[in-house]
C-alpha cells in the first residue's frame, strides 16, 4: 500500500473522535453539538474504512455506509427537535435545558 500505513489513519481517526467528543462536551449550542456528533461518527467511519483496507474486506465499507445513513437520521431528528424547541421560544442553549435535573 502506498503512502502512510493504516496505523496513521487510525491515529487520525482517534484524534478526530476526540475532537468530536470534545465538541459535544464543551459546546452549548445544540446545533454545534449535533455537528460534533457527526464528526464523532465520521471518525468511526474512518477507522472502519482503514481496517477494511487493512483486512482487504469490504464489510467495513458497508458498515461505514450504514453509519452514514444513521448519522443522517440522527441529524434529521436532532434538527427536528431543535426546530420544535425554537417554537416554544426557548434559548438554543443546552445548558439552559435544566427543567429536568436533580
Amino acid at each position: 500500500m502506498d503512502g502512510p500505513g493504516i496505523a496513521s489513519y487510525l491515529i487520525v481517526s482517534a484524534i478526530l473522535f476526540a475532537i468530536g467528543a470534545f465538541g459535544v462536551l464543551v459546546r452549548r449550542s445544540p446545533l454545534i453539538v449535533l455537528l460534533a456528533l457527526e464528526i464523532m461518527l465520521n471518525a468511526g467511519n474512518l477507522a472502519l474504512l482503514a481496517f477494511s483496507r487493512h483486512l482487504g474486506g469490504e464489510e467495513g465499507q458497508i458498515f461505514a455506509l450504514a453509519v452514514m445513513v444513521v448519522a443522517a437520521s440522527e441529524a434529521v431528528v436532532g434538527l427536528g427537535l431543535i426546530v420544535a424547541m425554537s417554537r416554544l421560544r426557548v434559548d438554543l442553549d443546552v445548558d439552559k435545558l435544566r427543567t429536568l435535573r436533580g
Partner: protein
Amino acid sequence: MTPAAWVALFAPAAAVVMIALAGHRITGRAAGVIASGATLVSFVATVVTFALLLRRHEEERSDASTLFTWLSAGDFRVGFEIVVDPLSVFMMLVVSGVGFLILSYAVGYMATDDEERRYHAYKALFVFSMLLLVQAGNLLLLLAGWGMVGLSSYLLINFWHRRRSAVGAGKKAFIMNAVGDATFALALFILIQQTGALSFAPVFGRAELMSDTLATLVALGLLGGAVAKSAQVPLHTWLPDAMEGPTPVSALIHAATMVTAGVYLIARTAPLFELAPEVHDLAAVLGGVTIVLAGLIALVQTDIKRVIAYSTMSQIGYMFVGAGLGAYGAGLFHLMTHAFFKALLFMAAGIVIHALAGEQDIRRMGGLGRELPWTYRFMLVGAFALAAVPPFAGFFSKDAILASAANSGTLGWILWGLAAVGAFLTALYTFRMLFVVFGRDVSAYAREHLHRERFEGPLAMVWPVAILAVLSLVGGFLQVPGLWHAVDHWIEPVAESIEEASGGTAVFSAVAALALALAGIALAWMLYRRPTYGPERARRAAPWAARTLEQKFFFDEAYDLALYEPASHTASGLYRFVEAPLVLASLGDIGATVRGAGRRLAAVQTGVVRSYALAVAVGLAVLAIAFVIAS
C-alpha cells in the same frame, strides 16, 4: 392416705377459684367463710392423714403420690407430686391448723374493708401455696410452692395498695425473695446435673456422689433461699416492712407459717446440708446473729407490729440455730410453738389496732389493760411464751434448742451464748411492749379513739385468739427435755436430730436461759412499767448506738447504696449512653448520612446534558484504560 393429702392441698385452691369466679355475687363475709372453710377442710384432711400415718409402722411412714407429669425435658421428668411423711404432715398440721384459726379471725378483722373478697382469695391462695410447699414431693414443686407463697405474701402485703409504703414493702419482699428463689434454682440445676432428678429420694440417694465443692454450692443455694424466705441476716430487711399488710396476714404469713419455711427447707434437705457441714454451720451462725441483731433492733421499735416482727426474725434465728446444728426436732418444735404464740401475739395486737382504729404506734397507746382485759391476758400468755417462761410453750422449745447447742462443741457454745443473750433481749423488748401498751395510764389518744365492741372485738376475732392462747400454754408439753421427745421422734424418719445435752449441762442451760429471761422481764418492769428517764438516758449515753439501732444497722441504706442505686444508675446510663445514641439513633444517623450522600449525588445531575456525556466519556476512559492495563 394420699387422697386425703390431695384434698388438703386442693381445698384452698378450690376456694380461690370459687371466690374469684363468684365475684360480686357473694358477700365479703361469705368469701371469708369459704376461705376459712376450705382451710378447715384442709385441716381435717390433714388430721386424717396424720391419723393414717400414725397407724403405720415407723419405717413405712412415707408415701408419695404423683398426679401427672408436670414438666419434662427428655428423660428429666418432674411430677406434680406430693409426699406424705412425718415432716410434711407436721408442717401441714401447723399450716392448716393455725391457718384456719387466722383465716377465721380475718373474717372478723376484715369485715369493714371493701375489698374483703380479694383479701380472702389471696389468703386462701396463700394457704394453698404453703401447703404445696410443705407437701411437695420434689424440689421443683417445693420451689414452686416457695415462689407462690412469696407471691401471695406480695399480694397481701400491698393489699392496701393505695398506701405508697405498702406497695413498696410488697415489692421489696417479692424481690428479696426472688433473690432467694434464684439461688434456690441454681442449687437445683447442680442437683439435676449431678443426680438427674429432683424427687427427694433419688436426690438424697445420689447426692453423696457429689464433690464437696458442689455439695457446698448446693447447700449454699438452698440456704440462700431459706435465708431470704425466713428473713435471716442479711436478707431480712423485707420482713419489718411487710407489716404494712393487714394484721392477720402478718400473723399467718410473716409469723406462723411462711417465714418459717426456711427451717422446713433445711430439715427437708437435711441430707444435703449434712454433706456440706460448713454451710450447715453457716445456717446456724446466721441464725445466731439474727437472734441478737433482731433483738437489739426490736428494743427501739415503736410500731407494735414491727416489734413483733423483729421478734419473729429473732425467733426464727433460734430455729435456724437448731436446724443448722442438726437439731431438727428442736427447730421444728420451736417452729410449731412459735406459730402458736406469735400468731397469738399478732392477733392480739390486731385486736388492739382494731380497737384503736388502725393505730400501731405504741407511744400513743397505754393503759389498755383495763380497757381490753381479755386481750391483755392473751397478750400476756403470748409474751410469756415468747420470753420462754415455763410452763408456756416457748420455754420448752427454746430450751430444746439451747440444749442441743450446748451439745455441739465450741460453735455450739458460741451459739448458745448468742441465744442466751437473745433470750434476755426477747424478754426485755416483749415486756417493754406489753408494759407500754397495756400498763401505765390510759393515753390521750387511746381515750379518744378507743371503741369497744361487744367483746373487745367481733367474736370471730376473739375465739381463734383464745384457742391459740390455750395452745401457747400447753403446746410446750409435746416435748419435755429429758422426759419425752415426741417431735424429734416423729420426724426422725425424715431428719434425724442430734442428741441434746443432758444432765448437768441441760439443767445449766435451762436455768441460765430462764434466768436471763427473767432478768429481761425485770429490767422491762423497771424501765417501762411507768414512763422513766432510763431509756432516754441510755440514748444520750450512746447516741451512735441508738441511731444504729433505729436505722436497723443500716441494712436498707447499704442495699440501696450497693444494689439499687447502681442498678438504677446503670439503667439510666445504659439508656443515655448506649440505647439512645447507639441503638435507637443509629438508623437515623445512617439514614441522614445516606440521605446526604444521595443529595450530593443528585446534585451531580445538574440537568446540563454535556455533563451527562462527560460522565460517559470519563467512564469510558476509565474502563478502557483499565482494560488495556489489565491486558
